[in-house]
């Protein structure tokens, strides 16, 4: 008894008001008409530029050439203009500049980070990579061989196989059912012409979103934007994509692999990012499986029963479909029990909802921890890209905690009833799970 009282005292003493945090985001339009969002921050002599070309990720991969966007992303910084691969990479490396590209399902992203004293040279290199990549035979062969090695290796990773199997089930006829990095056959089939063609179609001003953070003023930024992006083709306007529904059997699939620990992935439909209930769902997910140590799934599966090291759930909204996704891993002997507890908890929350206390605690976590995301230049810039991408508004960072604050226990429980579908929770287990077989517990 004493213990509990003292614990409460410890908490109450320090429980204070929500964290107030505000930043100033400017919209900058360059002389040449390129738009970017900017946060000026002179605390370090660095500049971070994050950008994405919407819709032009693995979406554009033709059938039989899956992995095209991904392979291209690894090659456009392997030589451009007059600089071959060694010259290009050497110049970046010697000045500690970071330039990287990545292909997602729904977009092709890029990231630039440099000390300001090397920035001009770096911007020219970024421009060259976007407009005049070389695709010389040596780096193409080398990077392709590395990608193939990775693809092969992943075939023996139970978590990767669980994810791949689940996505293929949920999206049998949709590109989300294919992996962004392709297969050994499709990656081997990609030609230099395919990659050149991809860069011409994908890198357009109409699909470009840019965010800049660092020791740079709005006046400096305009010419920088034109220097990097100014001579990209205009391209076609981005159109809203059609939504698709995941195919949710609610069943269980076992994939055999000789490993001592089974990997478990699970998913059901989730809210879209634009859904007004997205914030209530964010609070609900924190309580269900998003809150690390504090979630229902962690409490029931890890803390009480010692079944896993990690179990989680997360919202996974994408352009054309949205999921409520999660994962866990447990010894083969306990996979059945883990799946049972997972399903029970999912149903419990769907049917009985959560408590007002849980909602309050989730909100103070979600609002209080938000400023923790704003301590690294590149990361802040990537947040700004995401906000533009989802069309959340230039003042979103300053409004975001109010949106979470506004969520009531009633909202959360309404959303639990509306979205959580325990009968449609599809599960894939990869390993040698005792007592489990495809299509439900045996």
């Amino acid at each position, binding site marked *: 008894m004493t213990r509990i009282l003292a614990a409460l005292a*410890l908490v109450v003493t320090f429980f204070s008001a929500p964290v107030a945090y505000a930043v100033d985001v400017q919209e900058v339009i360059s002389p040449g008409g390129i738009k970017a969002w900017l946060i000026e921050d002179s*605390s370090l002599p*660095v500049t971070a530029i994050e950008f994405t070309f919407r819709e032009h990720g693995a979406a554009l991969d033709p059938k039989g050439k899956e992995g095209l966007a991904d392979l291209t992303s690894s090659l456009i910084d392997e030589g451009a203009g007059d600089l071959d691969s*060694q010259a290009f990479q050497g110049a970046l490396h010697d000045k500690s500049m970071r330039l990287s590209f990545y292909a997602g399902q729904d977009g092709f992203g890029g990231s630039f980070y440099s000390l300001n004293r090397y920035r001009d040279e770096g911007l020219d290199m970024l421009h060259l990579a976007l407009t005049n990549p070389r695709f010389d035979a040596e780096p193409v062969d080398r990077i392709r061989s590395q990608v193939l090695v990775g693809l092969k290796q992943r075939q023996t990773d139970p978590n990767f196989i669980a994810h791949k199997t689940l996505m293929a089930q949920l999206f049998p006829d949709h590109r989300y059912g294919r992996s962004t990095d392709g297969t050994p056959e499709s990656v081997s089939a990609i030609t230099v012409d395919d990659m050149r063609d991809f860069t011409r179609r994908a890198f357009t001003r109409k699909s470009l979103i840019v965010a800049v953070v660092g020791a740079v003023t709005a006046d400096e930024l305009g010419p920088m934007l034109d220097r990097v992006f100014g001579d990209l083709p205009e391209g076609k306007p981005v159109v809203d994509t059609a939504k698709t529904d995941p195919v949710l059997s609610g069943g269980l699939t076992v994939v055999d692999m000789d490993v001592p620990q089974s990997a478990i992935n699970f998913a059901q439909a989730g809210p879209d990012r634009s859904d007004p209930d997205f914030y209530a769902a964010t609070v609900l997910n924190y309580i269900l499986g998003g809150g690390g140590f504090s979630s229902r799934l962690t409490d029931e599966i890890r803390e009480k029963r010692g*079944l*896993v090291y990690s179990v989680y759930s997360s919202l996974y909204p994408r352009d054309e479909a949205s999921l409520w996704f999660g994962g866990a*891993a*447990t010894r083969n002997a306990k996979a059945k029990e883990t799946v049972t507890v997972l399903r029970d908890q999912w149903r419990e929350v769907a049917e009985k909802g959560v408590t007002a206390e849980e909602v309050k605690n989730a909100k103070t976590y979600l609002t209080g921890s938000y*400023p923790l995301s704003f301590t690294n230049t590149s990361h802040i810039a990537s947040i700004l890209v995401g906000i533009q991408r989802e069309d959340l508004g230039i003042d979103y960072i300053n409004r975001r905690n109010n949106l979470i604050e506004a969520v009531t226990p009633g909202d959360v429980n309404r959303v639990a009833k509306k979205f959580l579908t325990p009968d449609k929770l599809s599960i894939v287990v990869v390993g040698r799970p005792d007592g489990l077989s495809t299509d439900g517990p045996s």
Partner: protein
Amino acid sequence: MTFTKFCARNFTGLLLLVLSVGLAQAAVFNPKTKTLENGMQVVVVENHRAPVVTNMVWYKVGAMDEPPGKSGLAHFLEHLMFKGTKNLAPGEFSATVARNGGTENAFTTQDYTAYHQSIASDRLELVIKLEAERMVNLRLTPEDIEPERQVVLEERRSRVENNPGARLSEQAMPALYFNHPYRIPVIGWAHEIKGLSQQDIVDFYKTYYAPNNAILVVAGDVKPEKVFALAEKYFGPLPAVDLPERPTWVEPPHEADREVTLRDARVTQPSWSYRMFAPGYHSDDHKRGYALEVLADILSSGSTSRLYRALVVEQKLATSAGAWYDPDQRGPALFGFYLSPREGTDINAVKTALWAEVDHLVKDGVTQDEVDRSIRRMQDNAVLALDSLSRPARTLGAALAIGMTIDDVENWPDRISEVTLEDVNRAARDLLSDHHGGLETRLLPAEKASSKKEKGA
């Protein structure tokens, strides 16, 4: 709590460690420090970019301090530190941090154990108070210990048993260290984790968890005087303990070449490594460490480095190749090499090509230009290391926990800049002209049934 890390001494672990140390230590963090009367050191790095702080408590005790037969004890205790204390119910620590918008975790290595939270700066007092509470008031019950033991065994399955590379590392370390406890894995052998008793855990906790064996490091939006006052208020009253004398582990001469090979059906990409002892920051010749750091950088940093360029780009023999150097740990420093052959290339052919590059370097030396570019990179990266809330705290905490000083960290860029061409070439000659007595590892796919048959026939 939760997603506890432990730095298993495997290849990638080592590699990352070296990279991060190389990057992070170059910074001039301008820390302020004070030592409390009970011996606890307090270190503060100001960073007012966002209204947040990182709070870390480092204990100068790690897996290498475990009694014989009790492997995994330091890491198991780390998990249990999130259970109940005299004034907190089990789980209350984490729930309180989360309710206040904080994130937290902990990690255990061979050398030290650290606990950390990131949280709004106006809640620093809360997490300091919580850490002081669990430094001395941990209360364990079998109901807390038993499920957590299963969690640790699951962690072991995730990190080691499901991972052929990590399994090789566990098998290989006893061949690298004849004497030093680094031969035993941080997470522990499964059979010994199962045997750890409540008394083992409590004894270890009472022996090593005390202010005079701990360092508080706070980085973020806070003034040093404020942190010193909070440390005085919450940690100040805690009594120092008599810390046991710890063995000085000395490796006997290593004369034999050792090779350890693991074959596994799940390996699709073979890999090879070689590692050897080298002078580190703790050795009498610690200046040699800075030269070796430049050497490793020239050999291995980026795709224009010597080994990647020669083996991967020009000779097209490997998909990856490089070197690493780990100068700053309580135990012996290590220098190593790794490679992975391209498909269809024999692993021994790549190994021969790697040693040929090393021999070429020893014979002809590196160039002044390579040294200059390497030093510039490391100094630039010292500035970039400030672009993080937690990195200064991690770098300083790790250095102090292994017995280095704040000056060692703060003067790192200067010491690196003093490294000359001759220093690098002499260090390379002394270390690499005769590479014997080290450990070679191979991770290979399972032998095909047909080749087994041939062998048997």
